[in-house]
């Protein structure tokens, strides 16, 4: 519809895949020990590890999801960037060096370093697997979402391509190949995103954004009297004020056998009608886009400035502009955002996207997505809970934490985290410009805002689009590789080796890890296909909330409270895991997915961290105090002596 299948994008993606596969097979010859497979031998340079951190962390949710959210919701999308980056401060100041000191291959190692407790081994491994799978699903779904428009292939093919390639990468050389895939992907992401932002700033802002030389759609405004008699007599009213459309504030018109829907705005003389975009799902399942099948291409990308102001004066275009000039011009201007309305009539359900001119000063502050103005206590609670989960989730993600085992020292762990903060923080600054650039460049697909960054690139030509698209695939590859390493470690090392006590030789441990990677890869492919259509950022939010609740209280109390016991740690993981999952399953968002009304959900918030995290802390403290006589451990801030 509004996508181009680019041979260049396909070629670049294939070249990247061949490169990483070649690298994986090369590194596989040097990966015969368990240290080599699970921790890349522990000798990765801190600078390489820092960029690999960025490659691991900046997933499809960051690159596609945040840019898309900023493009449609302004500053509220950038709140995710701020929260995610804040999480790295927790990782640096509290977690990085102790993780390196205490663990060997997995997150469970660190938690269990002083106890050798079966309950910790089991619960931490389950938590690792659950968090990793929640994170895996949206990445795999993202792969399918990308491959459909870019290569013209079905969703399941995209999922299979990414699943097979990543499983091969991990099963050949484990953490070594994963590290270098993430390093290249992280470096490419920073370079290409910077290039795109420079191009956005060089092009500047305009009220008539061009899309690779194509003029932007010219939105029509019609005027009527109070009886809805149109000044332009070429239009005929087919659903007026007394129809179901009229009740919802719209009218349906027809001209030259083409139907169109218009938003009603009362004026002194009658009505002003603003053109809309709409999709219709007919009762027989057929989908129409602006009244026609998708192949006719009537549904077009949107996003423009209604009134552009610089220094208080209205202008048509700014020309090249600096980063702060770009943002201040947007702050002064009026930007057209898009509201959504639903009308159900005898033919089917119509979703209508209508123009909502909004002052830039409101776009560049919270409130468009999160309800903060005149919010109810529950809405305030939900917002605070989300910001807590974003802040605390990063330092508890198992696939991120295992990167600390790949460097040779605690100082290297610390320095690689600082490189990660620099790289990820810089990327998150860029997301604001990419998202706002997409919002005002006529490139937003209202049906799927995840494609905003690739479509912004397309507005500069097919070459940049091809690079960004292949990079989006690489983004999925890098993150999924890290997740499969974490999951295979949880199965082979935590469950088989430690929990079940199978006495495995070094060679067998590596083989078990590779077989686990194959199994997890197959599961990931299956889930990626089954969850087609699920919002990419939805499950990432789950993963953060569950990780923050199940893992962070346990690791923090282990490090900083000397009375922590093995049973306390296991109880904390159990309570955090199941309370966060239970609250999510009872949330309004899930009620909607069950096909019920969100208002009927047992709880009225979507983010559970503000309840489940304190519960996990409380469980650890109470159980630890009750089991003091069982185990006496010292404060674990000193080296384990290994």
């Amino acid at each position, binding site marked *: 519809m509004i996508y181009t299948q680019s041979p260049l994008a396909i070629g670049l993606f294939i070249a990247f895949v061949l490169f990483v596969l070649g690298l994986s097979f090369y590194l596989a010859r040097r990966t015969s020990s368990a*240290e080599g497979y699970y*921790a890349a*031998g*522990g*000798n990765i340079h801190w600078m390489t590890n820092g960029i690999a951190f960025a490659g691991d962390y900046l997933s499809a949710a960051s690159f596609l999801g945040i840019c898309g959210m900023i493009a449609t919701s302004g*500053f509220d999308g*950038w709140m995710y*960037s*701020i929260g995610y*980056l*804040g999480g*790295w*401060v*927790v990782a640096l*100041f*509290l977690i990085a*060096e*102790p993780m*390196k*000191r*205490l*663990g*060997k*291959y997995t997150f469970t190692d*660190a938690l*269990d*370093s002083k106890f*050798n407790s079966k309950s910790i081994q089991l619960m931490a491994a389950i938590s690792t697997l659950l968090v990793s799978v929640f994170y895996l699903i949206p990445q795999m779904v993202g792969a399918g979402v990308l491959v459909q428009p870019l290569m013209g292939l079905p969703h399941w093919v995209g999922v299979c391509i990414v699943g097979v390639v990543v499983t091969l990468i991990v099963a050949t050389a484990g953490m070594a190949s994963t590290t270098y895939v993430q390093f290249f992907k992280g470096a490419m992401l920073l370079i290409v995103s910077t290039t795109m932002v420079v191009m956005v700033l060089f092009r500047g802002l305009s009220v008539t954004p061009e899309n690779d030389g194509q003029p932007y759609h010219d939105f029509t405004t019609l005027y009527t009297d109070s009886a809805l008699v149109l000044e332009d007599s070429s239009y005929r009213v087919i659903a007026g004020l007394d129809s179901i459309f009229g009740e919802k504030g719209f009218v349906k018109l027809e001209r030259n056998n083409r139907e169109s829907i218009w938003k009603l705005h009362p004026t002194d003389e009658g009505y002003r009608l603003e053109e809309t975009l709409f999709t219709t799902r007919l009762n027989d399942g057929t989908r129409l886009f602006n009244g026609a099948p998708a192949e006719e291409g009537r549904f077009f990308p949107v996003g423009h400035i209604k009134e552009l102001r610089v220094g208080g004066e209205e202008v048509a275009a700014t020309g090249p502009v600096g980063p*702060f000039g770009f*943002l201040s011009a947007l*702050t002064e201007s009026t930007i057209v955002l898009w509201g959504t309305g639903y009308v159900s009539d005898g033919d089917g359900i119509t979703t209508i996207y209508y123009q909502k001119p909004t002052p830039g*000063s*409101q776009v560049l*502050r*919270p*409130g468009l997505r999160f309800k*903060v*103005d005149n*919010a109810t206590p529950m809405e305030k609670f939900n*917002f*605070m809970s989300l910001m807590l989960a974003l*802040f605390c989730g990063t330092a508890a993600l198992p696939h991120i934490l295992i990167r600390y*085992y790949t460097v*040779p*020292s*605690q*100082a290297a762990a*610390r*320095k690689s985290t600082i490189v990660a*903060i*620099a790289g990820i*923080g810089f990327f998150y*600054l860029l997301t*604001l410009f990419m998202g706002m650039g997409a919002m005002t460049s006529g490139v937003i697909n209202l049906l799927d805002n995840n494609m905003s960054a690739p479509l912004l690139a397309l507005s500069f030509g097919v070459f940049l689009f091809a690079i960004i698209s292949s990079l989006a695939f690489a983004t999925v590859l890098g993150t999924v590789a890290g997740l499969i390493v974490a999951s295979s470690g949880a199965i082979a090392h935590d469950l088989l*080796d*430690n929990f079940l006590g199978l006495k495995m030789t070094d060679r067998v441990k590596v083989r078990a890890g590779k077989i686990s990677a194959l199994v997890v890869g197959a599961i990931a492919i299956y889930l990626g296909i089954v969850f087609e259509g699920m919002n990419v950022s939805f499950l990432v939010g789950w993963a953060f909330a569950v990780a923050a609740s199940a893992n962070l209280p346990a690791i923090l109390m282990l490090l900083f409270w000397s009375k922590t016991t093995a049973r306390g740690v296991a109880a904390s993981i159990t309570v955090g895991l199941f309370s966060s999952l239970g609250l999510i399953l009872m949330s309004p968002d899930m009620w909607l997915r069950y096909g019920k009304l969100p208002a009927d959900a047992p709880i009225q918030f979507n983010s559970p961290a503000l309840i489940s995290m304190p519960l996990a802390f409380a469980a650890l403290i109470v159980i630890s105090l009750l089991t003091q006589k069982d185990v006496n451990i010292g404060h674990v*801030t*000193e*080296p384990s002596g*290994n």
Partner: protein
Amino acid sequence: MGHGPAVKLGKDNAASFKTSLGIKMFFGYALFYLLFVMLNVFYPKSMEIIVFGQTAAVVWGFSLIILAFVMAVIYNHFCTQAEKRYNN
């Protein structure tokens, strides 16, 4: 049980100093983050105030991201000095 580090680590005499410094710096950043969240929750209009041509929300966002990096560099500086002082 096979939990120790994958590579042999020497004894780090600076660990206590680094832990203490890390906790202090964490609370410093967390307070700044908390203030940002609370302003959004209880005084959302304050985020629309124009400061140096930008909304206060944008200024806060840039500040939080840049502050994280600046604090990280300062933390590393003092940790490196402590490692030299205590481990040599």
